[in-house]
């Protein structure tokens, strides 16, 4: 299967259920979208993330009721530096969609989605631990993998591989 070029035009992608739903609700929440390698990515405006998640979860046609994963990509040194990535799955429709939120490098913070999917609890703690992104409203924002007194966030690109000396 040779690689097809990625589709980034929002108009062409309007038929996708998740994008259609989001656009119908609030077109300013959707910043961009990308259909690449059979996977749909939607960039969400950061302040609308929680509402967008609730909307996608409670959608009657194609409910994205399962949060597969929350992670983050660090695009240091470009800005906005962080991309928080949510992988959603619709168990009834067997459909996946990826939500992305871009965050600036200094004191990155974003709303938690633990109230939408409790599953986000550990995932968000892991992202906080390894990238230093604060999830506001998270019930227990503590380090998950590293020791409590660890300095720095190891998965950031500017974190020295041997650790701070």
């Amino acid at each position, binding site marked *: *299967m*040779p*690689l097809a070029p*990625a589709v980034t035009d929002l108009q062409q992608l309007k038929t996708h259920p998740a994008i259609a739903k989001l656009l119908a609700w609030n077109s300013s929440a959707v910043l961009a979208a990308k259909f*690449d*390698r059979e*996977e749909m*990515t939607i960039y969400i405006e950061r302040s609308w993330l929680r509402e967008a998640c609730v909307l996608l979860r409670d959608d009657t046609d194609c409910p994205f*009721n*399962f*949060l*597969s*994963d929350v*992670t983050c*990509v*660090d695009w240091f040194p470009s800005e906005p530096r962080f991309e928080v*990535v949510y*992988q959603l*799955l619709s*168990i009834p429709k*067997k459909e*996946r969609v*990826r939500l992305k939120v871009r965050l600036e490098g200094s004191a990155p913070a974003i709303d938690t989605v*633990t*109230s*939408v*999917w*409790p*599953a*986000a*609890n*550990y*995932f968000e703690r*892991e992202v906080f631990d*390894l990238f230093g992104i604060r999830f506001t409203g998270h*019930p*227990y924002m503590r*380090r*998950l*993998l*590293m*020791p409590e007194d660890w300095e720095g966030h*190891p*998965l950031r690109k500017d*974190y020295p*591989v041997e650790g701070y000396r």
Partner: protein
Amino acid sequence: MAHLTTMPELEPGQDRTMILNMGPQHPSTHGVLRVILEIDGENVVRIMPDIGYLHTGIEKTCEAKFYQQVVPLTDRIDYLCPLTNNLCYVLAVEKLLGLEIPPKAQWMRVMLNELTRINSHLVWLGTHAMDIGALTVFLYCFREREDILRLFEAVSGQRMMTSYFRIGGLALEPPLGFFEQTGKFADRFPAKVDEYENLLTGNPIWMMRTKGVAKLAAEDAIALGASGPTLRGSGVDFDLRRDMPYSGYENFKFRVPVAQDGDVFSRYMCRVRELRESIGIVQQALQGMPEGPIKADAPRVVLPDREKMKTQMEALIYHFKIITEGFAVPEGEVYQAVESPRGEMGYYVVSDGTAKPYRVHMRAACLANMQTLPKMCEGRLLADVIAAIGSIDIVLGEIDR
């Protein structure tokens, strides 16, 4: 949904309760899980898992390796099903590359994956039964696991850390007689499952210990991100192999076992039935194993055969280039999920166009499954915590990565 996520601080001895620190060194926390329990006598008031004792920073290590060098690292994540990890990673990279895999390699991958699933379930069954006190099942399971490990050793040269799947195909041709051996194993295995079930399924004590214990409702399971047998044990009929097929799973006929009660016994039954289904897939794969190459025709990505390398100039050059500077992967990102023995294992690979992955993230099925533990155990007895931990089949290597 707040009741599913509250994680208050545990403070000792407020009201006749006692804080019991179970783990990280404890016989039944399956590795280095630490569970902090607040107990009132034998009753568990609150429970809080504490993880990270096996954190090895594999995700960070991946960023410093070439794409093909990441494969051996993936073995070490979920060390009970290394081939599933291999498969998930290579599928993700192949998707990034847009590689077409020859059918024989796909069928081999499916077959070995199902053997891995059996292998992993056997370890689970043995340890789970041992946690509940049935010692003999453990050794019976390891007897069959030994057979599978011998097959792995025959095919890949390694018993556990196989690294057998490569980007673009398989590492080696399976040796002579491998399929016969596998066939023999597949023929005698169902009788062995009967043996385990004879010891456990109808045993009144086993049923007393597992039925109605550590219940998890379907909506809670979905909300908490549980997957695999933990989800199917709660009555949600979802299996990535059937519902979102990958690596040629659409060519195989198998049933997805689902149990409705959401208790330890349901999860046990799901997995035991999966053992039988998996061996059925192995048999189908053996019968329909296609002929042909085991590697994709992509000289820039796939290492050439040893023979060609010694006779052909280009092959030698490609070999040299792949080994020394890897191969560039087109920009993009991919989330590839496969059904591991524990649930949805997903690899999120981001490429920036160089020969090293920009970011590799593993979605650990166990990490999400373990979030269900407080929901399952609170208000129950100490012994039920052990049963619950066993029933969600955790692997700390995957949780901590």
